[in-house]
């Protein structure tokens, strides 16, 4: 079993991340991945020019590592991978890649789902949308916390 986590300050290529995960998973029967992308519009409908993800110098990467390790321990997976951006992210750029591989599909689907539910509510970032109408802080919604609660 392997776990890989990275915090990226620059844009990354999710296709290349998936290709590397597939390559590493040659003994598995399933690879599942999720890519989160910065939306060009806020929930209010206002245009979003960029997303700013502020991070903590020590605890942000640790939170990614903790979540990825717990996913690897909880599900019958071979590999877990999380790549997360921080800093200024233009609309349309990837924010997060979460992937898992396993012998059979269910564990990989569940692990990817679990990774995202926990990242949405526990990864140590503070997220701000900026656009022509101004800036607003984005915090987890009740639905995000409910999604997280499904795994308890």
């Amino acid at each position, binding site marked *: 079993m392997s776990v890989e986590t990275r915090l990226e300050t620059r844009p990354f290529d999710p296709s290349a991340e998936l290709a590397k995960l597939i390559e590493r998973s040659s003994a598995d029967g399933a690879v599942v991945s999720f890519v989160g992308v910065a939306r060009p519009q806020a929930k209010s409908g206002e245009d979003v020019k960029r997303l700013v993800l*502020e991070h903590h110098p020590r605890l942000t990467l640790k939170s990614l590592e903790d979540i990825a390790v717990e996913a690897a321990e909880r599900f019958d997976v071979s590999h877990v991978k999380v790549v*997360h951006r921080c800093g200024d992210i233009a609309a349309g750029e990837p924010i997060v890649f*979460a992937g898992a591989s396993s012998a059979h599909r269910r564990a990989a689907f569940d692990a990817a789902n679990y990774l995202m539910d926990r990242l949405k*509510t*526990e990864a*140590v970032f*503070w997220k*701000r949308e900026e656009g022509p109408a101004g800036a607003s802080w*984005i*915090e987890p919604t009740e639905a995000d916390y409910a999604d997280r609660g499904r795994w308890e």
Partner: protein
Amino acid sequence: MKIHFYGRLAESLGRDIEVEVPGGCSIADLRQRLATEYPHAANSLGHRARALVGDVVVADSHFVRPGDSVEFFPPVSGG
């Protein structure tokens, strides 16, 4: 005592402030004092903001001493 803020709290209060707490105080006392001194940030300093000392989340009953550094985290969100 040094206090470091993140996210919306840093926007309201500045990234770092220093307060005098002769003899120390609890995190609850510190929240109350900051909310009184910075009423525009009182809501954001409520229970949804976690307090950390030495990179560990601490309870409101935790006692901090002069020389300690405290960090306040508004709710976090990745993905």
